[in-house]
């Protein structure tokens, strides 16, 4: 399966959009199919944010429970299904992170997670999703370090711009400028990948 299946797939498998509509009408099988397609990615994201497997698995469950309840509110013109699910997961994970008050979790633990937990994804990734991940990672790496850092702090740690400024002792205006530059560069550099999602 590819990560995004907005459009109908050549193999005849239902697209993500068709699945989410089916979920909205109460189709459990559709929810199960969406889970099979995207659970590994969502668990990876939750683990990156939370650092604890148990919490990440809870977040994964919450995300799909939310999907089951709120699928009727999904709007295809606002985000791809995979984007919607990932942003739901991110939102839930950050809520959990804040409630856990583990602000002291540092870059070292993030690295440890990256290095140690990426061996079990066989069978869930495909060439296409790997290629997309490689492209996004490449573009993130291309960003100047200071821009990449603020973006990752905002996205993966859920810190506000003011919190990043306080944590790094960098003026708020500079933090905002770096974040905005990073986002605009990514939007430009990843335009082909974005087109695939539209």
């Amino acid at each position, binding site marked *: 399966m590819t990560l995004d299946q907005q459009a109908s797939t050549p193999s005849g498998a239902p697209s993500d959009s068709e699945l989410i509509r089916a979920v909205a009408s109460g189709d459990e099988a559709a*929810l199960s199919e969406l889970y099979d397609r995207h659970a590994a990615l969502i668990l990876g994201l939750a683990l990156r944010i939370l650092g604890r497997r148990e919490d990440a698995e809870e977040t994964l469950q919450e995300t799909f429970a939310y999907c089951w309840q709120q699928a009727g509110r999904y709007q295809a013109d606002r985000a791809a299904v995979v984007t919607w699910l990932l942003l739901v997961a991110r939102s839930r994970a950050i809520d959990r992170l804040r409630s856990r008050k583990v602000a002291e979790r540092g870059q070292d633990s993030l690295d440890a997670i990256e290095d140690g937990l990426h061996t079990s994804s066989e069978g869930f990734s495909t060439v296409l999703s790997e290629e997309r991940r490689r492209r996004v990672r490449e573009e993130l790496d291309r960003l100047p370090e200071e821009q990449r850092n603020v973006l990752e702090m905002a996205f993966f740690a859920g810190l506000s711009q003011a919190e990043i400024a306080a944590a790094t002792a960098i003026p708020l205006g500079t933090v905002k400028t770096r974040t905005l530059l990073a986002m605009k560069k990514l939007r430009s550099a990843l335009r082909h990948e974005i087109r695939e999602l539209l």
Partner: protein
Amino acid sequence: MSLPYDREDELILALLEAKEPLPSAEPAEEEQVLSRLYGEVLGLVAQSVEPVAPPPQLKDALLARVRKGAPRLSAAPAIRAVEKPAATAEPPAPATPTSALEFRSFPLARPEPPPTIRKARRWPALLAAGLALVSSTGAAWFWTQAQESSNQVRLLEQKLAAVGRERQLAQAEIASLREASAGLVEKLALITRPGAAVCALKPPGALPAQAQPLARGALFVSSDHQHWYLKVSGLRPVAEGRVYTLWFMTDGGPRPGGVFKVEAGHEAEIGSVSMPSGMKAVLITLEPTQRATQPSGDQVLFGNEMLPIS
């Protein structure tokens, strides 16, 4: 896009700090496209993480949780609400009738009235049969019409969705072109502004065996000594994990300016709006990691002479 600079920036920061995955308020039409584009950027950033296979029992637990009956806000068919067991978060059922199931099934359970004995007449039966025939024919006709209408509506919805997707693609393309154009204008402004300077980069004097003698580069620096733009050519692509790193050499030591990779036969460009003060020279090295804090890899390009452009 044509949004004022500040509005676009506000939109990006709002998306990053949004509590909900998608803003609930309907944005203005011209903001919708930008909101979508930057939302997808965030989704792609999320996709940069490695997937992790969940244990199989997690899916079973999820489906069991779903079957238990979390309340649904979507427009599920009424029959589902009846069939599902009472959910914990649903409002309490009224005292009488005791449950929706009983209430809805009441008409079916109602006993038939006792048959009355009347003297039979033939013509009412014939009339009733005729009426039944007419009404069933009418119902069949209406059903066919309804099906056709439904099919037409579905086709129109599909066409509308396709048109919407095309429109979004076109708008994304326009946004990309505008952005590219803005980037060019920005670079042109940087190098034509009074006081702008350029530093030519060449391979360092003592060339090691793995040197890249054809590599060349130019660092353009704006008059504010903050905005800069680097363009390099002739560099070889590097193996996975290795990156070219730009260093600003200052009195306080080397300061990293960014990392980049190159594709075979392509030039590379990077730029930023900040530069450390007191920059004396520029160095590009090939580092084994993107997080190098000191230049330790092969020195590829070097320059230490800033020349005014105009």
